Protein backbone atom coordinates (compact mmCIF):
# COMPACT_ATOMS: atom_id res chain seq x y z
CA UNK A 1 0.00 0.00 0.00
CA UNK A 2 3.02 2.30 -0.13
CA UNK A 3 3.72 2.26 -3.83
CA UNK A 4 3.24 5.93 -4.66
CA UNK A 5 6.19 8.27 -4.86
CA UNK A 6 4.62 10.97 -2.71
CA UNK A 7 2.98 10.40 0.63
CA UNK A 8 -0.81 10.61 0.36
CA UNK A 9 -2.58 13.49 1.99
CA UNK A 10 -5.00 12.47 4.73
CA UNK A 11 -8.12 14.35 5.74
CA UNK A 12 -10.46 13.73 8.67
CA UNK A 13 -13.59 11.88 7.57
CA UNK A 14 -14.92 10.72 10.92
CA UNK A 15 -14.68 11.20 14.67
CA UNK A 16 -15.56 9.03 17.63
CA UNK A 17 -14.25 7.88 21.01
CA UNK A 18 -10.80 6.31 21.33
CA UNK A 19 -10.68 3.10 23.32
CA UNK A 20 -6.96 2.49 23.44
CA UNK A 21 -4.97 5.73 23.55
CA UNK A 22 -1.76 5.51 21.53
CA UNK A 23 0.53 7.72 19.51
CA UNK A 24 1.23 4.89 17.06
CA UNK A 25 0.08 5.47 13.49
CA UNK A 26 -2.29 2.77 12.27
CA UNK A 27 -3.09 2.74 8.59
CA UNK A 28 -4.68 0.32 6.17
CA UNK A 29 -7.55 -0.36 3.79
CA UNK A 30 -10.97 -0.26 5.44
CA UNK A 31 -13.53 -3.08 5.20
CA UNK A 32 -17.20 -2.76 6.17
CA UNK A 33 -18.51 -5.95 7.81
CA UNK A 34 -22.28 -6.16 7.95
CA UNK A 35 -23.05 -9.81 8.70
CA UNK A 36 -21.43 -12.89 10.24
CA UNK A 37 -21.01 -14.29 6.71
CA UNK A 38 -19.10 -11.12 5.74
CA UNK A 39 -16.88 -11.53 8.77
CA UNK A 40 -16.11 -15.18 8.08
CA UNK A 41 -15.40 -14.61 4.38
CA UNK A 42 -13.16 -11.66 5.09
CA UNK A 43 -11.23 -13.45 7.81
CA UNK A 44 -10.63 -16.33 5.44
CA UNK A 45 -9.56 -14.04 2.59
CA UNK A 46 -6.05 -13.56 3.94
CA UNK A 47 -6.45 -9.76 3.88
CA UNK A 48 -7.69 -9.28 7.42
CA UNK A 49 -4.42 -8.78 9.24
CA UNK A 50 -3.51 -5.78 7.08
CA UNK A 51 -6.95 -4.19 7.29
CA UNK A 52 -8.99 -1.88 9.47
CA UNK A 53 -12.47 -3.26 9.93
CA UNK A 54 -15.67 -1.33 10.46
CA UNK A 55 -18.88 -2.63 12.07
CA UNK A 56 -22.15 -1.16 13.16
CA UNK A 57 -22.52 -2.32 16.77
CA UNK A 58 -20.20 -2.18 19.74
CA UNK A 59 -20.62 -5.74 20.95
CA UNK A 60 -17.77 -8.20 21.19
CA UNK A 61 -18.95 -11.34 19.57
CA UNK A 62 -19.75 -9.99 16.12
CA UNK A 63 -16.10 -9.01 15.76
CA UNK A 64 -14.73 -12.09 17.55
CA UNK A 65 -12.82 -13.51 14.55
CA UNK A 66 -11.33 -10.09 13.82
CA UNK A 67 -10.09 -9.85 17.40
CA UNK A 68 -8.88 -13.43 17.50
CA UNK A 69 -7.06 -13.50 14.17
CA UNK A 70 -5.84 -9.94 14.47
CA UNK A 71 -6.66 -6.87 12.41
CA UNK A 72 -4.82 -3.56 12.34
CA UNK A 73 -7.69 -1.57 13.77
CA UNK A 74 -11.38 -1.51 14.63
CA UNK A 75 -14.03 1.12 14.03
CA UNK A 76 -17.67 0.99 15.12
CA UNK A 77 -20.63 3.21 14.38
CA UNK A 78 -22.18 2.56 17.80
CA UNK A 79 -21.00 1.71 21.31
CA UNK A 80 -18.78 3.04 24.07
CA UNK A 81 -15.31 2.14 25.42
CA UNK A 82 -16.85 0.44 28.46
CA UNK A 83 -18.74 -1.98 26.20
CA UNK A 84 -17.52 -5.53 25.77
CA UNK A 85 -15.88 -4.79 22.44
CA UNK A 86 -14.11 -1.81 23.95
CA UNK A 87 -12.80 -3.96 26.77
CA UNK A 88 -11.70 -6.76 24.43
CA UNK A 89 -9.98 -4.49 21.93
CA UNK A 90 -7.90 -3.17 24.82
CA UNK A 91 -7.07 -6.71 25.94
CA UNK A 92 -5.88 -7.52 22.41
CA UNK A 93 -4.08 -4.21 22.08
CA UNK A 94 -5.96 -3.42 18.86
CA UNK A 95 -6.58 0.30 18.26
CA UNK A 96 -10.30 0.98 18.27
CA UNK A 97 -12.49 4.03 17.78
CA UNK A 98 -16.16 3.68 18.68
CA UNK A 99 -19.35 5.55 17.84
CA UNK A 100 -17.74 7.15 14.83
CA UNK A 101 -19.77 9.56 12.72
CA UNK A 102 -18.44 9.83 9.19
CA UNK A 103 -18.87 12.95 7.13
CA UNK A 104 -17.78 11.51 3.79
CA UNK A 105 -18.14 8.22 2.01
CA UNK A 106 -20.81 5.93 0.65
CA UNK A 107 -24.16 4.94 2.15
CA UNK A 108 -24.94 1.58 3.74
CA UNK A 109 -28.26 -0.19 3.18
CA UNK A 110 -29.54 1.69 6.22
CA UNK A 111 -28.27 5.06 5.05
CA UNK A 112 -25.25 5.36 7.34
CA UNK A 113 -22.27 7.13 5.76
CA UNK A 114 -19.06 5.06 5.75
CA UNK A 115 -15.83 5.09 3.76
CA UNK A 116 -15.94 2.85 0.69
CA UNK A 117 -14.28 -0.55 1.04
CA UNK A 118 -10.60 -0.35 0.22
CA UNK A 119 -10.22 3.31 1.16
CA UNK A 120 -6.91 3.76 2.94
CA UNK A 121 -7.68 5.13 6.38
CA UNK A 122 -5.53 6.16 9.28
CA UNK A 123 -6.60 5.96 12.92
CA UNK A 124 -5.59 8.76 15.23
CA UNK A 125 -6.11 7.52 18.78
CA UNK A 126 -3.75 9.93 20.47
CA UNK A 127 -6.60 11.80 22.17
CA UNK A 128 -9.89 10.97 23.86
CA UNK A 129 -11.66 11.91 20.63
CA UNK A 130 -10.46 9.49 18.02
CA UNK A 131 -10.20 10.56 14.40
CA UNK A 132 -10.45 8.54 11.22
CA UNK A 133 -8.55 10.08 8.34
CA UNK A 134 -8.77 8.97 4.75
CA UNK A 135 -6.33 9.33 1.94
CA UNK A 136 -7.49 12.11 -0.36
CA UNK A 137 -8.60 10.56 -3.68
CA UNK A 138 -6.09 12.50 -5.78
CA UNK A 139 -3.21 11.05 -3.78
CA UNK A 140 -3.77 7.76 -5.58
CA UNK A 141 -3.38 4.29 -4.17
Amino acid at each position, binding site marked *: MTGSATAPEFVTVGEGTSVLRSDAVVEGPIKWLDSPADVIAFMESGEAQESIVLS*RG*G*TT*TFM*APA*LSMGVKGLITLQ*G*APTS*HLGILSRE*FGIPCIMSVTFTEGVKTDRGEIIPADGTIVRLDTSGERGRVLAAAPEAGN
Partner: protein
Amino acid sequence: MSNDTAPLSALLERYRTVYEPGSAGDEQVRGLLRSGVTDLRADRLLEAALTDEELNDLIAYCGWNVWDMLGKRATEGESGLIPRQEYETIAGVEQYSSYPALFELITDAVGAEGVIEMGAVARREIGTKVNLLHAWCCCMPMLSGRGFGLGLDLIKPGDRREELARAFQFSRRLYRGMWGEDGQMFATGRSYNAPLLAGTEWLDRFHDERVELDDERKSFYTSFNATTQLLAFLLHMDCRLGLSDSGPYLMPDGRVLIVRDHFLHDPAYSWFEISSDLPHAVTQALYFSPPEGMTFTVNDLSTTFTDPPEYLPYLSAVAVYARDRWDTPVEQIRKLDEAELEKITKLSRTKTMELYKTFGSMSREELVDYGVQMYVVDMVLPFLRLAGVTERAISELDLYGRSPLTRQAYDHLMDPATAAEVLPRVLIGGCGFVPATGEDPLSPALIPTV
Protein backbone atom coordinates in the same frame (compact mmCIF):
# COMPACT_ATOMS: atom_id res chain seq x y z
CA MET B 1 -37.78 19.95 39.18
CA SER B 2 -39.57 18.40 36.29
CA ASN B 3 -37.46 15.91 34.41
CA ASP B 4 -40.08 13.55 33.08
CA THR B 5 -39.04 14.25 29.51
CA ALA B 6 -35.30 14.37 30.06
CA PRO B 7 -33.09 13.81 27.04
CA LEU B 8 -31.03 10.63 26.90
CA SER B 9 -27.79 12.56 27.37
CA ALA B 10 -29.02 13.95 30.70
CA LEU B 11 -30.10 10.49 31.81
CA LEU B 12 -26.68 9.09 30.99
CA GLU B 13 -24.98 11.89 32.91
CA ARG B 14 -26.91 11.31 36.16
CA TYR B 15 -29.39 8.68 37.27
CA ARG B 16 -32.86 10.12 36.83
CA THR B 17 -30.91 13.30 36.00
CA VAL B 18 -30.13 13.77 39.71
CA TYR B 19 -27.92 11.04 41.16
CA GLU B 20 -24.25 10.91 40.27
CA PRO B 21 -22.24 7.87 39.18
CA GLY B 22 -19.61 6.28 41.40
CA SER B 23 -19.07 6.62 45.11
CA ALA B 24 -20.67 10.09 45.19
CA GLY B 25 -23.88 8.61 43.79
CA ASP B 26 -23.75 5.71 46.23
CA GLU B 27 -23.60 8.20 49.08
CA GLN B 28 -26.41 10.32 47.63
CA VAL B 29 -28.75 7.39 47.11
CA ARG B 30 -28.00 5.59 50.37
CA GLY B 31 -28.60 8.87 52.16
CA LEU B 32 -32.22 8.72 51.04
CA LEU B 33 -32.89 5.14 52.11
CA ARG B 34 -34.89 4.67 55.29
CA SER B 35 -34.09 1.14 56.36
CA GLY B 36 -30.35 0.47 56.04
CA VAL B 37 -31.14 -2.58 53.93
CA THR B 38 -27.85 -2.37 52.01
CA ASP B 39 -25.98 -2.82 55.30
CA LEU B 40 -25.49 -6.55 55.91
CA ARG B 41 -26.21 -6.51 59.62
CA ALA B 42 -26.21 -10.03 60.98
CA ASP B 43 -29.38 -9.55 63.05
CA ARG B 44 -31.50 -8.94 59.94
CA LEU B 45 -30.05 -11.64 57.73
CA LEU B 46 -31.88 -14.57 59.28
CA GLU B 47 -35.32 -12.97 58.99
CA ALA B 48 -37.36 -14.81 56.40
CA ALA B 49 -38.19 -11.72 54.37
CA LEU B 50 -37.49 -8.03 53.97
CA THR B 51 -39.99 -5.53 55.34
CA ASP B 52 -41.88 -3.36 52.84
CA GLU B 53 -39.59 -0.46 53.64
CA GLU B 54 -36.48 -2.58 53.14
CA LEU B 55 -37.79 -3.96 49.86
CA ASN B 56 -38.55 -0.50 48.52
CA ASP B 57 -35.16 0.77 49.59
CA LEU B 58 -33.39 -2.14 47.95
CA ILE B 59 -35.33 -1.66 44.71
CA ALA B 60 -34.43 2.03 44.73
CA TYR B 61 -30.75 1.40 45.38
CA CYS B 62 -30.60 -1.34 42.76
CA GLY B 63 -32.04 1.01 40.16
CA TRP B 64 -29.12 3.34 40.69
CA ASN B 65 -26.64 0.44 40.92
CA VAL B 66 -27.76 -1.06 37.60
CA TRP B 67 -27.53 2.34 35.96
CA ASP B 68 -24.06 2.81 37.43
CA MET B 69 -22.94 -0.60 36.08
CA LEU B 70 -24.77 -0.88 32.81
CA GLY B 71 -26.37 2.41 31.89
CA LYS B 72 -23.71 3.57 29.49
CA ARG B 73 -23.15 0.06 28.14
CA ALA B 74 -26.82 -0.20 27.24
CA THR B 75 -25.96 2.13 24.40
CA GLU B 76 -23.39 -0.24 22.93
CA GLY B 77 -25.73 -0.88 20.08
CA GLU B 78 -26.77 -3.94 18.22
CA SER B 79 -24.88 -7.16 17.74
CA GLY B 80 -24.74 -8.53 14.24
CA LEU B 81 -24.36 -12.03 15.66
CA ILE B 82 -26.19 -12.52 18.95
CA PRO B 83 -29.50 -10.75 19.69
CA ARG B 84 -28.42 -9.78 23.14
CA GLN B 85 -30.95 -7.12 24.00
CA GLU B 86 -33.74 -9.51 23.12
CA TYR B 87 -32.42 -12.41 25.18
CA GLU B 88 -31.45 -10.21 28.13
CA THR B 89 -34.92 -8.77 28.44
CA ILE B 90 -36.66 -12.12 27.99
CA ALA B 91 -34.33 -13.77 30.49
CA GLY B 92 -34.97 -10.97 32.99
CA VAL B 93 -38.69 -11.61 32.89
CA GLU B 94 -38.04 -15.32 33.41
CA GLN B 95 -35.76 -14.58 36.37
CA TYR B 96 -38.40 -12.36 37.94
CA SER B 97 -40.79 -15.28 37.52
CA SER B 98 -38.66 -18.24 38.52
CA TYR B 99 -35.87 -17.15 40.83
CA PRO B 100 -37.89 -16.72 44.04
CA ALA B 101 -38.89 -20.39 43.94
CA LEU B 102 -35.36 -21.50 43.03
CA PHE B 103 -33.98 -19.55 45.98
CA GLU B 104 -36.54 -21.17 48.26
CA LEU B 105 -35.47 -24.58 47.01
CA ILE B 106 -31.84 -23.83 47.83
CA THR B 107 -32.63 -22.28 51.20
CA ASP B 108 -34.85 -25.20 52.16
CA ALA B 109 -31.96 -27.52 51.35
CA VAL B 110 -29.15 -25.75 53.21
CA GLY B 111 -30.83 -23.24 55.53
CA ALA B 112 -30.22 -19.51 55.82
CA GLU B 113 -26.80 -20.04 57.42
CA GLY B 114 -25.97 -22.46 54.64
CA VAL B 115 -26.63 -19.76 52.06
CA ILE B 116 -24.22 -17.45 53.88
CA GLU B 117 -21.67 -20.26 53.87
CA MET B 118 -22.12 -20.68 50.10
CA GLY B 119 -21.17 -17.06 49.58
CA ALA B 120 -18.00 -17.67 51.58
CA VAL B 121 -16.73 -20.00 48.84
CA ALA B 122 -15.75 -16.86 46.93
CA ARG B 123 -13.23 -16.09 49.69
CA ARG B 124 -11.64 -19.55 49.60
CA GLU B 125 -11.53 -20.69 46.00
CA ILE B 126 -10.46 -19.63 42.54
CA GLY B 127 -11.99 -20.89 39.31
CA THR B 128 -15.47 -20.81 40.86
CA LYS B 129 -18.58 -19.06 39.66
CA VAL B 130 -19.46 -18.33 43.26
CA ASN B 131 -18.14 -14.83 42.72
CA LEU B 132 -19.06 -11.18 42.95
CA LEU B 133 -20.81 -11.18 39.60
CA HIS B 134 -22.98 -14.18 40.35
CA ALA B 135 -24.02 -12.72 43.72
CA TRP B 136 -25.12 -9.58 41.88
CA CYS B 137 -26.94 -11.77 39.37
CA CYS B 138 -29.00 -13.32 42.15
CA CYS B 139 -30.39 -9.89 42.86
CA MET B 140 -30.38 -7.48 39.97
CA PRO B 141 -31.80 -9.36 36.96
CA MET B 142 -34.98 -10.17 38.90
CA LEU B 143 -35.52 -6.45 39.26
CA SER B 144 -34.57 -5.69 35.67
CA GLY B 145 -37.04 -8.37 34.61
CA ARG B 146 -39.69 -6.80 36.84
CA GLY B 147 -38.89 -3.52 35.12
CA PHE B 148 -39.32 -5.07 31.68
CA GLY B 149 -42.65 -6.56 32.78
CA LEU B 150 -43.76 -3.17 34.05
CA GLY B 151 -42.51 -1.51 30.89
CA LEU B 152 -44.70 -3.83 28.84
CA ASP B 153 -47.69 -3.36 31.16
CA LEU B 154 -47.74 -7.07 31.90
CA ILE B 155 -47.43 -6.72 35.66
CA LYS B 156 -48.14 -4.20 38.41
CA PRO B 157 -45.56 -2.79 40.88
CA GLY B 158 -47.07 -4.67 43.82
CA ASP B 159 -47.14 -8.06 42.12
CA ARG B 160 -45.11 -10.84 43.78
CA ARG B 161 -44.15 -8.48 46.60
CA GLU B 162 -43.91 -11.23 49.21
CA GLU B 163 -41.87 -13.55 47.00
CA LEU B 164 -39.44 -10.77 46.16
CA ALA B 165 -39.11 -9.81 49.83
CA ARG B 166 -38.00 -13.37 50.56
CA ALA B 167 -35.84 -13.71 47.45
CA PHE B 168 -33.74 -10.68 48.29
CA GLN B 169 -32.86 -12.14 51.65
CA PHE B 170 -31.19 -14.94 49.68
CA SER B 171 -29.10 -12.36 47.84
CA ARG B 172 -28.20 -10.53 51.02
CA ARG B 173 -27.08 -13.76 52.68
CA LEU B 174 -24.86 -14.64 49.73
CA TYR B 175 -23.26 -11.22 49.89
CA ARG B 176 -22.73 -11.50 53.64
CA GLY B 177 -20.87 -14.75 53.16
CA MET B 178 -18.89 -13.40 50.25
CA TRP B 179 -17.62 -10.32 52.06
CA GLY B 180 -17.22 -12.21 55.34
CA GLU B 181 -18.15 -9.18 57.37
CA ASP B 182 -20.84 -6.60 58.07
CA GLY B 183 -20.93 -3.57 55.85
CA GLN B 184 -22.29 -2.60 52.49
CA MET B 185 -23.82 -5.21 50.22
CA PHE B 186 -22.55 -3.99 46.88
CA ALA B 187 -19.09 -3.05 45.65
CA THR B 188 -20.55 0.35 44.81
CA GLY B 189 -20.80 0.90 48.58
CA ARG B 190 -17.26 -0.36 49.16
CA SER B 191 -15.40 2.12 46.98
CA TYR B 192 -15.35 -0.45 44.16
CA ASN B 193 -12.94 -2.75 45.93
CA ALA B 194 -13.41 -6.51 46.06
CA PRO B 195 -10.23 -8.17 47.36
CA LEU B 196 -12.10 -11.36 48.21
CA LEU B 197 -9.01 -13.55 48.59
CA ALA B 198 -7.19 -11.15 50.92
CA GLY B 199 -5.56 -12.96 53.82
CA THR B 200 -5.74 -16.40 52.18
CA GLU B 201 -2.92 -18.75 51.24
CA TRP B 202 -3.78 -18.14 47.59
CA LEU B 203 -1.95 -14.85 47.65
CA ASP B 204 1.18 -16.55 49.00
CA ARG B 205 0.93 -19.25 46.35
CA PHE B 206 0.51 -16.73 43.54
CA HIS B 207 3.53 -14.85 44.81
CA ASP B 208 5.68 -17.97 45.07
CA GLU B 209 4.67 -19.29 41.65
CA ARG B 210 4.63 -16.07 39.62
CA VAL B 211 6.63 -15.60 36.44
CA GLU B 212 8.34 -12.24 36.04
CA LEU B 213 7.78 -10.90 32.54
CA ASP B 214 10.18 -9.55 29.95
CA ASP B 215 8.70 -8.08 26.75
CA GLU B 216 8.51 -11.41 24.92
CA ARG B 217 6.85 -13.18 27.83
CA LYS B 218 4.48 -10.27 28.33
CA SER B 219 3.27 -10.63 24.77
CA PHE B 220 2.80 -14.37 25.28
CA TYR B 221 0.77 -13.93 28.48
CA THR B 222 -1.34 -11.02 27.23
CA SER B 223 -2.20 -13.09 24.17
CA PHE B 224 -3.32 -15.92 26.45
CA ASN B 225 -5.41 -13.47 28.49
CA ALA B 226 -7.09 -11.89 25.48
CA THR B 227 -7.72 -15.10 23.56
CA THR B 228 -9.25 -17.03 26.44
CA GLN B 229 -11.30 -13.99 27.44
CA LEU B 230 -12.75 -13.71 23.97
CA LEU B 231 -13.73 -17.38 23.93
CA ALA B 232 -15.31 -16.98 27.38
CA PHE B 233 -17.40 -14.09 26.06
CA LEU B 234 -18.51 -16.02 23.01
CA LEU B 235 -19.33 -19.22 24.92
CA HIS B 236 -21.41 -17.16 27.35
CA MET B 237 -23.38 -15.51 24.53
CA ASP B 238 -21.57 -12.18 24.66
CA CYS B 239 -22.14 -11.62 28.36
CA ARG B 240 -19.75 -11.38 31.28
CA LEU B 241 -20.74 -14.60 33.06
CA GLY B 242 -17.59 -16.27 31.74
CA LEU B 243 -15.26 -13.78 33.40
CA SER B 244 -14.61 -12.65 36.93
CA ASP B 245 -12.01 -10.41 38.54
CA SER B 246 -11.33 -9.91 42.21
CA GLY B 247 -9.11 -7.27 43.74
CA PRO B 248 -7.35 -4.96 43.66
CA TYR B 249 -4.88 -6.45 46.12
CA LEU B 250 -2.11 -4.07 47.16
CA MET B 251 1.15 -5.99 47.49
CA PRO B 252 3.92 -5.17 49.97
CA ASP B 253 6.31 -4.40 47.08
CA GLY B 254 3.93 -1.75 45.72
CA ARG B 255 2.49 -3.89 42.95
CA VAL B 256 -1.23 -4.34 42.38
CA LEU B 257 -2.70 -7.81 41.93
CA ILE B 258 -5.89 -8.64 40.03
CA VAL B 259 -7.09 -12.26 40.12
CA ARG B 260 -9.02 -13.15 36.97
CA ASP B 261 -11.08 -16.23 36.11
CA HIS B 262 -12.02 -17.15 32.55
CA PHE B 263 -14.60 -19.95 32.29
CA LEU B 264 -14.11 -22.09 29.19
CA HIS B 265 -16.16 -25.23 29.63
CA ASP B 266 -19.29 -26.42 31.41
CA PRO B 267 -21.38 -29.49 30.56
CA ALA B 268 -24.57 -27.65 31.56
CA TYR B 269 -24.86 -26.10 28.08
CA SER B 270 -25.02 -28.08 24.86
CA TRP B 271 -22.91 -25.66 22.81
CA PHE B 272 -20.04 -25.93 25.31
CA GLU B 273 -19.35 -29.37 23.89
CA ILE B 274 -17.04 -27.56 21.48
CA SER B 275 -14.69 -26.70 24.36
CA SER B 276 -14.73 -30.05 26.16
CA ASP B 277 -10.95 -30.37 25.79
CA LEU B 278 -10.37 -27.08 27.63
CA PRO B 279 -10.38 -26.60 31.41
CA HIS B 280 -13.55 -25.46 33.15
CA ALA B 281 -11.67 -22.37 34.28
CA VAL B 282 -8.28 -20.75 33.93
CA THR B 283 -7.26 -18.29 36.62
CA GLN B 284 -4.63 -15.61 36.15
CA ALA B 285 -2.91 -13.82 39.01
CA LEU B 286 -1.94 -10.59 37.23
CA TYR B 287 0.64 -8.37 38.90
CA PHE B 288 0.92 -4.77 37.78
CA SER B 289 3.61 -2.20 38.47
CA PRO B 290 1.55 0.93 37.87
CA PRO B 291 2.82 4.48 37.70
CA GLU B 292 2.08 6.73 40.64
CA GLY B 293 -1.50 7.89 40.72
CA MET B 294 -2.92 5.08 38.59
CA THR B 295 -6.05 3.61 40.17
CA PHE B 296 -7.59 0.13 39.94
CA THR B 297 -11.19 -0.66 40.83
CA VAL B 298 -13.37 -3.77 40.59
CA ASN B 299 -17.10 -3.24 40.22
CA ASP B 300 -20.13 -5.40 41.04
CA LEU B 301 -19.81 -7.12 37.67
CA SER B 302 -16.39 -8.44 38.73
CA THR B 303 -14.84 -6.16 36.13
CA THR B 304 -11.62 -4.23 36.56
CA PHE B 305 -11.44 -0.63 35.45
CA THR B 306 -8.32 1.49 35.67
CA ASP B 307 -7.59 5.16 35.34
CA PRO B 308 -5.94 5.65 32.92
CA PRO B 309 -7.65 2.79 31.02
CA GLU B 310 -4.51 1.30 29.48
CA TYR B 311 -3.32 -1.13 32.12
CA LEU B 312 -1.70 -4.05 30.33
CA PRO B 313 1.52 -2.11 29.64
CA TYR B 314 2.11 -2.27 33.40
CA LEU B 315 1.74 -6.04 33.69
CA SER B 316 4.94 -7.28 35.31
CA ALA B 317 4.33 -10.82 36.59
CA VAL B 318 1.77 -13.61 36.15
CA ALA B 319 0.81 -17.00 37.56
CA VAL B 320 -1.85 -19.09 35.80
CA TYR B 321 -3.92 -22.03 37.10
CA ALA B 322 -6.53 -24.43 35.80
CA ARG B 323 -9.58 -25.98 37.39
CA ASP B 324 -10.24 -28.83 35.02
CA ARG B 325 -13.94 -29.40 35.68
CA TRP B 326 -16.54 -27.45 37.61
CA ASP B 327 -16.46 -30.03 40.41
CA THR B 328 -12.69 -30.47 40.53
CA PRO B 329 -11.80 -30.16 44.23
CA VAL B 330 -10.08 -26.92 45.09
CA GLU B 331 -7.01 -28.86 46.26
CA GLN B 332 -6.54 -30.15 42.71
CA ILE B 333 -6.35 -26.75 41.05
CA ARG B 334 -3.01 -26.83 39.23
CA LYS B 335 -0.51 -24.34 37.90
CA LEU B 336 -0.20 -24.24 34.13
CA ASP B 337 3.20 -24.27 32.46
CA GLU B 338 3.93 -22.29 29.32
CA ALA B 339 3.59 -25.30 27.00
CA GLU B 340 0.03 -25.84 28.20
CA LEU B 341 -0.75 -22.13 28.05
CA GLU B 342 0.34 -22.10 24.43
CA LYS B 343 -1.87 -25.10 23.71
CA ILE B 344 -4.87 -23.45 25.39
CA THR B 345 -4.27 -20.22 23.48
CA LYS B 346 -4.21 -22.05 20.15
CA LEU B 347 -7.23 -24.16 21.00
CA SER B 348 -9.17 -21.10 22.15
CA ARG B 349 -8.46 -19.35 18.87
CA THR B 350 -9.66 -22.37 16.88
CA LYS B 351 -12.75 -22.87 19.04
CA THR B 352 -13.68 -19.20 18.75
CA MET B 353 -13.79 -19.44 14.96
CA GLU B 354 -15.69 -22.74 15.05
CA LEU B 355 -18.26 -21.44 17.51
CA TYR B 356 -18.65 -18.22 15.55
CA LYS B 357 -19.49 -20.23 12.46
CA THR B 358 -21.97 -22.30 14.45
CA PHE B 359 -23.69 -19.21 15.85
CA GLY B 360 -23.58 -17.57 12.42
CA SER B 361 -25.58 -20.45 10.99
CA MET B 362 -28.27 -20.43 13.69
CA SER B 363 -31.63 -18.68 13.60
CA ARG B 364 -32.35 -15.65 15.72
CA GLU B 365 -34.85 -17.68 17.77
CA GLU B 366 -32.26 -20.37 18.50
CA LEU B 367 -29.68 -17.81 19.56
CA VAL B 368 -32.18 -16.09 21.86
CA ASP B 369 -32.98 -19.49 23.36
CA TYR B 370 -29.28 -20.10 24.09
CA GLY B 371 -28.94 -16.62 25.54
CA VAL B 372 -31.97 -16.99 27.81
CA GLN B 373 -30.65 -20.36 28.95
CA MET B 374 -27.25 -18.83 29.68
CA TYR B 375 -28.71 -16.03 31.80
CA VAL B 376 -31.39 -17.96 33.62
CA VAL B 377 -29.44 -21.13 34.33
CA ASP B 378 -25.91 -19.85 34.78
CA MET B 379 -26.72 -17.07 37.22
CA VAL B 380 -28.16 -19.52 39.75
CA LEU B 381 -26.39 -22.76 38.82
CA PRO B 382 -23.35 -22.37 41.11
CA PHE B 383 -25.68 -22.23 44.10
CA LEU B 384 -27.95 -25.03 42.93
CA ARG B 385 -24.86 -27.21 42.58
CA LEU B 386 -23.50 -26.35 46.01
CA ALA B 387 -26.88 -27.12 47.55
CA GLY B 388 -27.14 -30.38 45.57
CA VAL B 389 -30.54 -29.49 44.14
CA THR B 390 -29.83 -29.00 40.43
CA GLU B 391 -31.82 -32.05 39.38
CA ARG B 392 -34.78 -30.96 41.51
CA ALA B 393 -34.61 -27.49 39.97
CA ILE B 394 -34.87 -29.09 36.55
CA SER B 395 -37.56 -31.65 37.33
CA GLU B 396 -39.69 -29.77 39.87
CA LEU B 397 -39.18 -26.13 38.86
CA ASP B 398 -38.50 -26.49 35.13
CA LEU B 399 -35.14 -24.68 35.28
CA TYR B 400 -34.72 -24.78 31.50
CA GLY B 401 -38.37 -23.90 30.79
CA ARG B 402 -40.34 -20.69 30.44
CA SER B 403 -42.98 -19.29 32.77
CA PRO B 404 -46.38 -18.14 31.46
CA LEU B 405 -45.30 -14.52 32.00
CA THR B 406 -42.15 -15.05 29.93
CA ARG B 407 -44.14 -16.64 27.15
CA GLN B 408 -46.47 -13.65 27.27
CA ALA B 409 -43.55 -11.21 27.03
CA TYR B 410 -41.65 -13.20 24.41
CA ASP B 411 -43.27 -11.85 21.25
CA HIS B 412 -43.03 -8.26 22.46
CA LEU B 413 -39.37 -8.58 23.35
CA MET B 414 -38.43 -10.50 20.21
CA ASP B 415 -39.28 -7.36 18.32
CA PRO B 416 -35.84 -5.70 18.18
CA ALA B 417 -37.38 -2.26 18.28
CA THR B 418 -39.30 -3.06 21.47
CA ALA B 419 -36.30 -4.67 23.18
CA ALA B 420 -34.10 -1.76 22.19
CA GLU B 421 -36.67 0.69 23.56
CA VAL B 422 -37.57 -1.11 26.79
CA LEU B 423 -34.04 -2.00 27.87
CA PRO B 424 -32.64 1.55 28.04
CA ARG B 425 -35.90 2.87 29.46
CA VAL B 426 -35.61 0.42 32.37
CA LEU B 427 -31.85 0.43 32.84
CA ILE B 428 -30.95 4.01 31.97
CA GLY B 429 -34.15 5.81 32.89
CA GLY B 430 -34.74 3.58 35.92
CA CYS B 431 -38.44 3.48 35.17
CA GLY B 432 -38.67 -0.19 36.13
CA PHE B 433 -37.33 0.35 39.63
CA VAL B 434 -40.46 1.68 41.24
CA PRO B 435 -41.49 0.72 44.77
CA ALA B 436 -43.58 -2.37 45.38
CA THR B 437 -45.80 -0.32 47.62
CA GLY B 438 -45.86 3.23 48.92
CA GLU B 439 -43.42 6.03 48.17
CA ASP B 440 -40.27 5.95 46.11
CA PRO B 441 -37.31 6.67 48.41
CA LEU B 442 -35.63 8.56 45.59
CA SER B 443 -38.42 11.12 45.30
CA PRO B 444 -38.48 13.99 44.53
CA ALA B 445 -36.48 12.91 41.48
CA LEU B 446 -39.20 12.06 39.03
CA ILE B 447 -39.14 8.98 36.89
CA PRO B 448 -38.25 10.17 33.45
CA THR B 449 -39.26 9.04 30.04
CA VAL B 450 -36.44 8.14 27.69
